[in-house]
């Protein structure tokens, strides 16, 4: 009976498509197909909204809270959520809601900055490498292979321990360890674009290689990169959180999402002060999830083989 009703629903859906097609065929004004497809993806839209809310709240943090994220207040240690402190306070009396907002600034900046940096390095090198080939290409591929042979978190942990743990160092390390995958993706795209006729004809015209490479070919390889930037932002935020959680990320007194979680590592805190870790954890998860949904939506719109 269930299968029957679901079959009926399916049939109705098809009926609807058939009937709307008839009425639409007259005014066949095609708006941007990719945009329409993205907006049709409900999860991507919801993801975009959640993403925007979190970003705005973090970057305009002073508008939403009057506390200082670093101000220690020994009079209210580990207080439960109340009217004055929406999400309670931590072991040294700092307001957790404030710390989440200010922490978001750094975490998002690290995630987004690293993803952009990886994309920039990967695209620049990948375009050239894929277009030119030869010795430079071989050397770059080898280098990227070396970096990719390391499990990323391991390399990040090692480097962070050696060169120090400031936020900018962390971004640098993420870029150093993460550019390889973008590089490979762009390179393989360029290899196939290189064979296309328009590139051949540009070459015949004697146009400068760099102009062909970066002006004519690069834009055609950028679609997947956009998806990659969103998805790797999510990945880097998770990695930063893991790093800080292990106590090896940005200096512990600075508020980042990972650091807030790190301070509640003890089982005692875990069991008795839920507000010290649960809201941050949920915030990270929500934020990463929203980016992933947007990234997935973007991928579906740029992937022509997707039907439905």
């Amino acid at each position, binding site marked *: 009976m269930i299968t029957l009703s679901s079959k009926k629903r399916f*049939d109705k859906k*098809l009926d609807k*498509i*058939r009937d709307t*097609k008839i009425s639409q*065929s007259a005014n066949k004004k095609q708006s941007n197909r990719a945009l329409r497809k993205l907006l049709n993806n409900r999860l991507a839209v919801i993801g975009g909204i959640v993403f925007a809310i979190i970003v705005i709240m973090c970057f305009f943090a002073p508008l939403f809270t009057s506390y200082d994220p670093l101000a220690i207040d020994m009079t209210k240690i580990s207080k439960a959520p109340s009217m004055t402190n929406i999400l309670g306070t931590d072991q040294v009396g700092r307001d957790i809601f404030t710390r989440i907002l200010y922490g978001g600034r750094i975490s998002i900046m690290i995630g987004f900055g690293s993803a952009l940096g990886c994309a920039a390095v990967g695209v620049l090198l990948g375009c050239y490498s894929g277009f030119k080939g030869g010795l430079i290409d071989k050397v770059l591929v080898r280098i990227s292979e070396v970096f990719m042979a390391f499990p990323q978190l391991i390399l990040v942990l090692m480097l962070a321990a050696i060169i120090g743990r400031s936020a900018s160092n962390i971004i640098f390390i993420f870029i150093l360890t993460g550019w390889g995958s973008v590089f490979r993706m762009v390179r393989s795209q360029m290899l196939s674009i290189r064979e296309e006729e328009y590139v051949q004809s540009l070459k015949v015209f004697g146009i400068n290689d760099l102009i062909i490479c970066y002006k004519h070919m690069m834009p055609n390889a950028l679609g997947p990169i956009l998806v990659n930037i969103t998805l790797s932002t999510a990945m880097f935020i998770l990695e930063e959180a893991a790093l800080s959680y292990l106590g090896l990320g940005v200096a512990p007194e600075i508020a980042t999402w990972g650091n807030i979680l790190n301070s509640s590592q003890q089982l005692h805190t875990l069991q008795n002060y839920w507000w010290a870790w649960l809201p941050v954890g949920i915030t990270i998860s929500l934020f990463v999830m929203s980016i992933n949904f947007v990234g997935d939506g973007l991928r579906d719109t740029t992937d022509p083989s997707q*039907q*439905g």
Partner: protein
Amino acid sequence: MSDTIITVKNLNTYFYTNQRCNRALNGVSLEIKRGKTLCVVGESGCGKSVTASSIMQLLPKLCRIEQGEIIYHSEDRGDIAIQDLERNGKVMRSLRGKDIAMIFQDPMTALNPVYTIGWQISEMIRAHEKISKKEARLRAIDLLKSMGIPNPEKRVDEYPHQFSGGMRQRAMIAMAMSCNPKVLIADEPTTALDVTVQAQIFKLMDELKENYNTAIMLITHDMGVVCELADDVVVMYMGNIIESGSAQELLGNPQHPYTQALLKSIPMLGKGANQNLNPIKGSTPDPLNRTKGCQFAPRCDKRTEKCDEIMPEEQLVGKTHMVRCNLFCSDMKGVN
């Protein structure tokens, strides 16, 4: 028992991919007769394969039979209305393979790469008959032998990638014939093969028809094949049958401008490189954006104003010869 084994009447099949409706078939009617070969011709995308898939109910998920009927006149179970059967239901499955078998275009991809040829043939037999694995294997060897595959005892345990293209298609036919089906649907069975192998495959199919009285529906776009094998011919264009009839009548005296053009566009062997080919002008139109009247009108040499307005009705111009062209509609006779 009538001569006809499958009757297709006013079949409409629509595709619903990408949130749009593509009317792939718009009222196709044809008859497949026992022991006869029906050739379906037309360009790519005209709906030949969709017709075959509709008969087998092997359409993609976002695709359905909108209206019309497909009736299988079985010997022991009376008439079966295929369009009302559940797609992968029990009755439909009992027909597939046992009564109606199908051969696909590309034997390279139509066989599962991880199972042996013998296993795949046995699976078909065991799906319809209660016999042991051993017996099924012996049957498979016999079938391969009868398809002219050398050393079948050894070949039966080999994987598809160890077979050449022609051999794979033979294995495919062996599989299709394993349950002695009453109807064999061949969807461009030789397009992916060498010309020399093509001839062998067609000879094989002709023998099957003679020996087992199997009805064959052969889908092709090769007019040479049609001339040689067909008992009846159906010409399709953009989801309609525009001309049909016995091979003799239709090929000897083609009436529809499209059929005429199609026959003119075939190069003749022996005429040399300088022969005058007449390709059909224009290209296949967008199926999502159909014209109102006759579908062929935009490319037709003999089009009239009426052609843009009305899709012509079926007109009998010979004993079995049907054509759908405004040139033959009663009130237009003067123009001809």
